[in-house]
Structure formats: C-alpha cells, structure tokens
C-alpha cells in the first residue's frame, strides 16, 4: 500500500509531507519505546506511536523512517513538526488507538518489520 492508503484506512489527518503520499509502504512497527525501535528496526519503515516528544522525530531521522503515525489523536508541537518537515518525513495522526491502528493496517495487508534472526534463541515463546 501507499501512505495515501494508510491515510484512508486510518481516517488520518496529514500533518506533514502531503506531497509524498504516493510513497509505497510494506512494513510497520509500533512502539512507545524508542530504545526498542533503535534496536530492532533495520529498514525504512513506518512507526506508529503514542509518544509525541522530539526524540520520536530524531529516532526516525537516524533510521531514515518513511512515515510517523501518531495514535489516539495526539498532535506533536509545532517545533517537532518543523524538524520532521526538514528531514522529509511524512507525519499523520489518527484518532484510533495504536492497537486499532495496527489492526486495521494489518487487515489491509501491511506487515510487521522482520525481527533479527538472533531472536530465535530467546526465551519468549
């Protein structure tokens, strides 16, 4: 799907990057823990989060993420949006909770980022 499809599916508002909505997206991740995002995201993907501080945008910059989705109708402050604009990120906001946003996107074909192979040896299931 494209970011435009995500906007439609999530009934989202485009905050930044209206000119890049035709960008294709294949995977996404969802986290409020930037430490985790930095540790397991290896590709240019989409981040769905409820956290609206400047570090969400900085984390996106370091990882070259394509699109940020703020859940639960949260809108970050103007300076955060400006720094997102500077780095060419698309930022959208949906009123859905993070869980529901992930659910409808998955239902429409978007998948999670692949997890590192070394996780195979972990204890969690």
């Amino acid at each position: 799907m494209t970011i435009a499809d995500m906007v439609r599916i999530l009934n989202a508002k485009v905050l930044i990057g209206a000119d890049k909505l035709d960008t294709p997206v294949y995977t996404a991740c969802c986290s409020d823990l930037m430490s985790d995002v930095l540790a397991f995201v290896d590709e240019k993907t989409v981040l769905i989060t409820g956290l609206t501080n400047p570090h969400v945008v900085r984390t996106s910059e370091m990882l070259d993420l394509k699109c940020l989705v703020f859940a639960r109708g949260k809108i970050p402050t103007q300076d955060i949006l400006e720094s997102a604009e500077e780095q060419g990120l698309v930022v959208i906001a949906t009123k859905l909770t993070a869980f529901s946003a992930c659910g409808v996107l998955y239902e429409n074909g978007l998948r999670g980022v692949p997890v590192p192979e070394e996780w195979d040896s972990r204890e969690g299931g």
Partner: protein
Amino acid sequence: MEPLFKTSYEVARADYTSAGRASADIKRRLKQLGVGGDVLRRVAVASYEVELNLVIHSLGGELELNVFPDAVQLVSADRGPGIPDLAMAMKEGYSTANDEARSLGFGAGMGLPNMKRNADEFNIESTVGVGTTITMRFHLA
C-alpha cells in the same frame, strides 16, 4: 593514521532537549562526505545511542567523529561517574536510567548492546570515579 575529517561535540549532562543534535550533525556530515546506505544508518543509530547515554548517564562528555579512508570512528569520552559492573551494563534489558529518560522512550537497557551490534569494532573501558570511554569503528566497503 591521521583522519581525513575530524570533529567533536560537547554533550551536556541531562540536556534531554538537545540530545541527538550531535548525531544529526554527524549523519549530515558523513552524507556530505559520501558515506551512505547501511554503514551510514549503523553509524547514526550507534551515535544517537552513545549520545543519549552521555546525556542520561554521564556527568558530561565529548563525542568525537573521525573519518578515515577505510572506516568511520566514533569515540565517546565522559567525565564520570564510570560503570561499576560492565558485564551487567552490556546485558540487554539492564538499565539504571531515571524516570525522565524513561518518559522520553529510553532507558530500556538496549543502548550498549545496540551500539555493539551496529559497530564493526566496539570497545568500552570504564573506571569508577574517572569515566567511560567507548570507541566504535565502522568499516567502509
């Protein structure tokens, strides 16, 4: 060997607002120097992690970028307090970060292991009461 390019950044203790500015600048400069792709991404992530560590855990320090013909090197040197148990600090999930760091989405105990994972060479030395120095090298293809 003398680096082709060298610069450094002062990173202040508990300056959560500015944390990440040095790493953003490092990423921009490396891009200008023609470093891209996977190596640039790995340097950026490791640099951001180490910069956050300086802000969250140290009494302040310096982050240095050295660019050699065959490698990018990051050196983080702080003025303390030092890490009492390095083996524990290197463990995923172990963290001594405060609530402020955690409220910003950090302090999950992933920083040091993630630096090690992203760098081609990783070295950490720490003395309690003196400080911690982390040296990371990223090979350029």
